[in-house]
């Protein structure tokens, strides 16, 4: 195993992207993710890569669109308001079936909001983000190690399914330092015969485009795309279970909320309450089957979120509303304390008696 180093989550993302073969980065600064751009600005020129600070987020995502069309590994990063600006480009890229990695280190909203950690872009990201029928693969790291490993994996998944993958982190994950091993393994090669790289007069030219004026054809494209999404749902769901073997209460939480919940679960267990956690690592595809199965034995669910309650709807859908699901949340840049989560656990326990 490689030596562990201390890195900020944002830096770990940038380094892992470079290790994944990303040589094109386009971005525009915004707190709390600016370290990603700073790291890329420092490293890319030294390794023959391209770092470009665009004139806006909209420009940056369209540069990503262009680079992705040429089949190269490309990334952009931003935080909540900046991701909204990128929405149009994300939709165009989905309509053109292009792979890319987008980083969202979330901050409190709506609007310009604040700069403190948040998870309130859950709906936006898991439902596509822009207009039209589409999905992105949404990866939710809960440690600096995962900031690195999911970035590396994100590029692979994006190319494998010709989709945009997104790292949905938050300000805490971006700013904190933890030991990280940068051993990332081999880069998988994927078919790029669709890329616009010049025909050399030897083949028919490729076209990358999201405009399709014939409804029959556009419908078929949507059907084909969703057949691909189905494969993603079948093959790429990731989650982690914590103390679920005998759990009668199940917490569902991702990212920093899962880290806080872990403290609360340990305390609750010390007090004799049988509580565990399912931590989705992919938010789309959502670990529906794992939650449905948990609902066979767990009598209550708690969704712990840094939002007004967004993922809770997916928990209710996945468990088919067979069990009560309560919300334990803070918003606007606030983070629930372990004591608040413990209180929610106790209330759920009380509801069972």
């Amino acid at each position, binding site marked *: 195993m490689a030596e562990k180093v201390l890195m900020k989550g944002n830096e770990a993302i940038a380094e892992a992207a470079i290790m994944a073969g990303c040589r094109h980065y386009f971005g525009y600064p915004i707190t709390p993710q600016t370290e990603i751009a700073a790291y890329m600005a420092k490293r890319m020129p030294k390794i023959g890569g391209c770092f470009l600070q665009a004139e806006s987020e909209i420009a940056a995502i369209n540069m990503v669109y262009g680079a992705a069309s040429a089949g190269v590994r490309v990334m952009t990063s931003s935080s909540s308001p900046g991701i909204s600006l990128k929405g149009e480009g994300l939709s165009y890229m989905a309509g053109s079936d292009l792979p890319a990695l987008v980083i969202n280190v979330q901050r409190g909203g709506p609007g310009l909001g604040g700069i403190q950690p948040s998870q309130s872009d859950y709906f936006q990201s898991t439902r596509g983000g822009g207009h039209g029928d589409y999905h992105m693969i949404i990866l939710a790291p809960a440690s600096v190690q995962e900031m690195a490993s999911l970035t590396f994996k994100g590029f692979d998944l994006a190319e494998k399914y010709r989709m945009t993958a997104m790292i949905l982190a938050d300000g*805490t994950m971006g*700013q904190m*330092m*933890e030991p990280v091993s940068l051993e990332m393994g081999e880069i998988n090669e994927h078919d790029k015969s669709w890329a616009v790289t010049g025909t050399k007069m030897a083949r028919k030219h490729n076209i990358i485009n999201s405009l399709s004026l014939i409804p029959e054809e556009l419908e078929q494209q949507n059907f084909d795309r969703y057949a691909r999404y189905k494969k993603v749902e079948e093959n790429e769901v990731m989650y982690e279970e914590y103390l679920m073997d005998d759990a009668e209460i199940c917490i569902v939480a991702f990212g920093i909320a899962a880290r806080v919940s872990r403290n609360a679960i340990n305390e609750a267990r010390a007090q004799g309450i049988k509580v565990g956690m399912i931590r989705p690592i992919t938010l789309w595809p959502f670990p529906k089957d794992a939650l449905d199965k948990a609902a066979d034995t767990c009598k209550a669910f708690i969704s712990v979120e840094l939002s007004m309650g967004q993922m809770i709807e997916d928990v209710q859908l996945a468990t088919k509303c067979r069990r009560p699901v309560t919300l334990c949340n803070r918003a606007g840049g606030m983070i629930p304390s372990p004591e608040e989560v413990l209180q929610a656990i106790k209330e759920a326990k009380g509801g069972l008696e």
Partner: protein
Amino acid sequence: MSTMNILIAGFGGQGVLFAGKFLAYKGLLEDRQVSWLPSYGPEMRGGTANCNVILSDDPIGSPIVNKPDCLIVMNKPSLDKFVDTVVPGGMILIDSTMIDSKVERDDVTVYYVPASKLAGDAGFSTLANMILVGKLLYAMKDKGMDNVEEILKHVIPARKMDLLDINKKAIQTGYDYEA
């Protein structure tokens, strides 16, 4: 102690984040679980900074330190804000050059170290932070000064490595100071 939650707070520029980084690397080099979380919000832009460091033998849940076992404070507003959050039996290290008030709790161990004055007298006025770190190493009583140089080599950027010796001296000064 299997887990130590540390909160370091002061003004921006006092080296709060650097002191935290030193402690985090200490944990890393001792094969412990480690997390380091800085404040990056509007309070930082207004001039105060703080840093949460957790050293543990078990996997770390939340990286946020709400109830520190150890509080290091370098200005009065930080002492006022955090003094009551320290767990009973915990410790508070105070730069008594910057803070003239006393802690009124009797369930915590308090070290008053005139760190800014000691640093100024010794000719490294910017290293009050490391003097307090030295006192913490003394209070932790685990490895003393054993691996200080190795830790410093990891946290001081290569282009500033000429500052290694005075950092070491500052830590020693704090370690030896009779509070």
